């Protein structure tokens, strides 16, 4: 592998999905069922290329960064240009594999999951454009390009959520997703504007190096922090962080594989990737805000997840919660662990979604078979006892659940444990003790609600057991991805030591970059943080194991052994439950405030425009008109009157004089002579 080859491969990886999109959008009708094969095949090839890049990069070109840049727009003015380019470092290589792998497996899963859909080929086309945009984000080497693809994933997300656009809820959800993302994007764009007006370039490397030379926006660290936070806004939108997390649960209106791909593994992780990518520009203040946003998100959504019955909603909130975790981790300075959690989470959360997809698929079919259109196939209260019917799904689901709960021997344990250690270290260094408290609480809650889902779905038995009669395991296209993801959720892929990830390849490949901000506003140094993490490692393991175990125990006690009555607790705190079940009323809040305000303003302004501004115009017109009318009257009566009077006078005289006009030559001659005589007499 040479540098050129790397870049060529990367370019190929970027554009093959686009080709897939174009082919399927134009020839999808003709290809019909074969479009799935085309899409999957093309994505499969990108997976291969990604793997090649990944292995050679990690093994042989560990410390190198490959970059290819070209000028996209040249303003022809003092070297002011906008470049586009791709960059391959270790993080990119890892993300390439994550994205293409999940994408490929989701393609595979979708082949049978989406079978019979009216827009089968278009679905795969949209998956293609999504992969293209996501890979664009991953490969981008500058803010501009990342922003471009940032919006494009928004588009593909919009298209895929709205796949079943005949449903109002799906159409609404897609619109909501796009607009909420736009809000974040605008923040990001503002950040980009600050950076552009400061540095005159948008390339990551150039900005970082200029910044470490002491160039900061508008000579003010406040603006520097603001720039960082505004860029972070993009991540808040895309990674569904508080307060813009509301779109993600609604996005579950899309097909389940899409949820797995976009809304669990890749796109929502793009925010985390972005934070990691531009990590050097964050000041300490910015990082603290990021950490708190992450923590709040993690906590809020975990509480909501507990109170949900829809299997996809639970998973969605769990995703939000985990994303908050990652963001929090990056905020506290646990760069590697945050990013690591992104990768491990991608595997097991995609697996969870696909698993739930498998269940929903089965439920849907059996309900359809029973002509039952009232029962919600996604409600976990309608499930139960699927363990024996769908063994592969169950066992893989179990592995995923263990991983997300942070049980040893899984990948989740490795990453989560490190994040927890990071929060402890952070509180040691800065005194923000609330962060680790939240982190551990959320860890316990996660274990609790994930096992709740698992138990209610697969274990025990359902009262209405004939309803699940005839349920059977999903076809191989669906189970294979599950098995692969399950394998990837185990520790040995990442580290030889099941208790400590820092010994694995990942920790040597992804290293927290040096900050570029001035020293007085930068966060604690890498060394001190590492030391604190090391110091807290044992404590974190112990505590996290304890808490995860506790969560699992309570879950089993409640739902499996029924020692604790869930209903009783619900009845004790009905308001709290309602509050959680209604997702803290965020949607309602936004509806009543932001949306209401916008719509009212719009209506008021439209009224203002129509009545006042246009009214003024028309008023001016009518004033002019009445003035004109008045002056017309004046003109008619007075001015024209005078004129007419004159004319009348002359007419009168004319009438008299007319009698002289006899038409006889002699008369005229007589007058002529008289005239001549008169002249003679007068002038004599």
């Amino acid at each position, binding site marked *: 592998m040479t540098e050129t080859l790397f870049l060529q491969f990367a370019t190929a990886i970027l554009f093959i999905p686009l080709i897939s999109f174009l082919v399927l959008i134009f020839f999808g009708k003709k290809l019909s069922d074969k479009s799935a094969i085309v899409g999957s095949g093309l994505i499969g090839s990108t997976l291969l290329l990604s793997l090649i890049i990944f292995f050679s990069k990690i093994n042989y070109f560990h410390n190198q960064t490959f970059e290819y840049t070209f000028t996209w727009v040249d303003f022809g003015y003092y070297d002011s240009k906008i470049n586009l380019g791709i960059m391959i470092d270790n993080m990119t290589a890892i993300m390439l594999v994550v994205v293409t792998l999940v994408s490929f497996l989701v393609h595979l899963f979708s082949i049978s999951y989406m079978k019979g859909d009216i827009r089968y080929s278009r679905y795969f086309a949209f998956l293609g454009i999504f992969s293209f945009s996501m890979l664009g984000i991953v490969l981008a080497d500058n803010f501009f390009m990342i922003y471009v693809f940032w919006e494009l994933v928004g*588009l593909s997300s919009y298209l895929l959520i709205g796949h079943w656009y005949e449903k109002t809820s799906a159409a609404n959800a897609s619109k909501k997703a796009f607009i909420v993302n*736009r809000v974040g994007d605008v923040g990001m*764009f503002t950040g980009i504007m600050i950076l552009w007006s400061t540095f005159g370039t948008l390339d990551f490397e150039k900005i970082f190096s200029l910044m470490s030379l002491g160039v900061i926006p508008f000579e003010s660290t406040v603006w520097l922090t603001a720039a960082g936070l505004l860029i972070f806004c993009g991540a808040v939108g895309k990674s569904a962080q508080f307060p813009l997390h509301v779109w993600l649960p609604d996005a579950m209106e899309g097909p389940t594989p899409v949820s797995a791909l976009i809304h669990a593994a890749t796109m929502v992780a793009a925010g985390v990737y972005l934070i990691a990518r531009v990590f050097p520009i964050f000041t300490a203040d910015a990082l603290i805000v990021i950490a708190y946003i992450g923590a709040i998100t993690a906590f809020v959504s975990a509480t909501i997840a507990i109170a949900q019955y829809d299997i996809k909603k639970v998973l969605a909130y769990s995703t939000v919660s985990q994303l908050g975790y990652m963001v929090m981790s990056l905020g506290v300075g646990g760069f590697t662990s945050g990013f690591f959690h992104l990768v491990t989470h991608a595997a097991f959360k995609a697996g969870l979604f696909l698993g739930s997809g498998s269940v929903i698929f089965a439920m849907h079919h059996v309900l359809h078979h029973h002509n039952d259109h009232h029962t919600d196939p996604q409600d976990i209260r309608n499930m139960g006892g699927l363990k024996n019917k769908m063994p592969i799904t169950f066992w893989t689901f179990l592995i995923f659940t263990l991983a997300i709960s942070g049980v040893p021997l899984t990948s989740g344990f490795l990453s989560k444990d490190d994040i927890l250690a990071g929060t402890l270290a952070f509180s040691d260094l800065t005194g923000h003790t609330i962060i680790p408290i939240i982190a551990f609480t959320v860890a316990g809650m996660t274990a609790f609600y994930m096992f709740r889902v698992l138990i209610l779905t697969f274990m025990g038995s359902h009262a209405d057991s004939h309803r699940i009669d005839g349920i059977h395991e999903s076809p191989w296209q669906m189970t294979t991805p599950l098995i692969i993801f399950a394998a990837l959720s185990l520790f040995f892929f990442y580290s030889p030591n099941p208790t400590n990830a820092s010994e694995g390849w990942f920790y040597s490949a992804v290293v927290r970059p040096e900050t570029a901000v001035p020293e007085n506003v930068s966060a604690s140094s890498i060394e001190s943080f590492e030391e604190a993490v090391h110091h807290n490692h044992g404590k974190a393991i112990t505590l996290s194991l304890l808490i995860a175990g506790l969560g699992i125990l309570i879950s089993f006690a409640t739902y499996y052994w029924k020692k604790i009555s869930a209903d009783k607790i619900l009845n004790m705190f009905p308001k709290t439950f309602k509050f959680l079940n209604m997702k803290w009323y965020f949607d309602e809040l936004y509806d009543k405030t932001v949306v209401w305000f916008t719509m009212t303003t719009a209506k008021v302004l439209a009224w203002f425009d129509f009545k006042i*501004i246009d009214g003024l115009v028309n008023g001016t017109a009518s004033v002019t008109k009445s003035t004109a009318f008045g002056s017309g009257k004046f003109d008619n009566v007075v001015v024209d009157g005078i004129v007419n009077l004159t004319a009348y006078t002359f007419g009168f005289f004319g009438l008299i004089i007319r009698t002289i006009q006899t038409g006889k030559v002699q008369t005229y001659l007589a007058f002529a002579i008289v005239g001549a005589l008169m002249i003679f007499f007068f002038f004599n």
Partner: protein
Amino acid sequence: MNNNFLNIGILTWMTFIPVVGMIAVLLVPKEQKTTIRWISLGATIVQLIFSVIIYTNFDRSLAGVNNAATMQFVERYSWIDIKSVEWFGRIHIEYFLGIDGISVPMVLLTALISFVAVLSSWSIEKSIKGYFALLLLLDTGMMGVFVSLDFFLFYVFWEIMLLPMYFLIGIWGGPRREYAAIKFFIYTLFGSVLMLLVLIALYFSVSIPDASTGELVHTFDMIAMMNPANYEANSLLFGLNTSWRYIAYVGLFIGFAIKVPIFPFHTWLPDAHVEAPTAISVILAGVLLKMGTYGLMRVAMPIFPDAAIYYLYPLAFLGFINIVYGALCAMAQTDFKKLIAYSSVSHMGIVLLGMAALNTQGMIGAMFQMFNHGTITAMLFLIVGVIYDRTHTRGLNDFGGLMNQMPKYSAIMVIAFFAALGLPGLSGFVSEVFSFLGAFQTFRWITIASTLGIVLTAGYMLWTLQRVFLGELPEKWKSLTDINNRELIMLVPLAIIVILLGVYPTPILDLMNASANELVDFIKGENNLTILGQ
């Protein structure tokens, strides 16, 4: 560079080919509708071909703006020359055509949009002869505005445009067409009067030596007006930063603002758009609105750079108001065309903002946005026209679920909508981003506030998309037919341009790069002040 055909300059060809077409149309008996249509189409196609010739032969390195030597395809003849009038002196008006980077994208746009407009007028049946004749006359007026460098000529073309527009709206329009046409006409005429006043004031203030005799002669030459040295001492507009210059600038500004339209002079736009037939809406949004901002760039700002800088902040603020106000008003509309009309207000605000930035990115963004808005809004209006032709309603709430019924149409529509809301990969995004990037360097808070418009635009565009295309198809539209080939021919080229320029904007950007930089330098430049110091 001298592109002559039959000894007549290419710009004259560009401008007057529609007139030739018009005469031909008038000579054809009115029963031969097809012939009339094809003649009109032929005229615009020839114009389009000439515009391609201009595009390929245009020297990208020459800036133009305030330098007659770097203007291209120049044609300069004495037009009206009345020697020694009592108390008035010599009146000398030139037929002075030329283009630079500011005008060349507009010239291309005009040729393209005229072509599309003729195509989209194919279904007109009511007194077709008059319609196409007026349409072609309008074409001449528009083209003339963009190529003339003599202020008087500019004004003449500016006024020529009004008349056909008035009749096209007033005769072929919707139910309230008379109201809309009169409103449009009077409003624009009001602006023209202000422009005329400034034009006269400029005429009496500026004089240049005659080429042959060397005597000082008053002139309408715009480029001469840009040079402070040409102002006669003690004339009304002599000197920089005098109050008369500010007043003159504001006069010109209002004249152009009405055309843009800038808040609060925008209310003629929704009415005119709603009532105008599709092709006229397309021209109105695609080309006419650009004349306002073009006028600001070509006339107002370079002639009064001092005043332009003095009023930069208000200009940016108006840009902000246009963006946000237009977007909010659009959100509240239930009429498809009105919505797009207000979205035009919003999008033109971006041009103003970029222009006010007075730096390279902003200016390029603004100029590019003018071009892009032309193509994108043309698409949007064509789209409305297509559906209006079929259903005879424009109420957004009457539709739904058309995506399945009209898939090709919907695909084009999605492109247009996303281009309008500034999706990367489509041309609207590029210009929007450039404008904002530029504006931020000059006006931090206004720009940040204006970004609100990005969200709002996404909001109303997607909401519209949902109301029209998503959801269940109402029973009454079950028989709608998909877009036909003629409609495809007019929409697809626009869509391709939108996508191509979104991915790689350089083909248009490098046309205007040099001029935009020159314009910015010139308006900002201290050289202004030094010349005046003499």
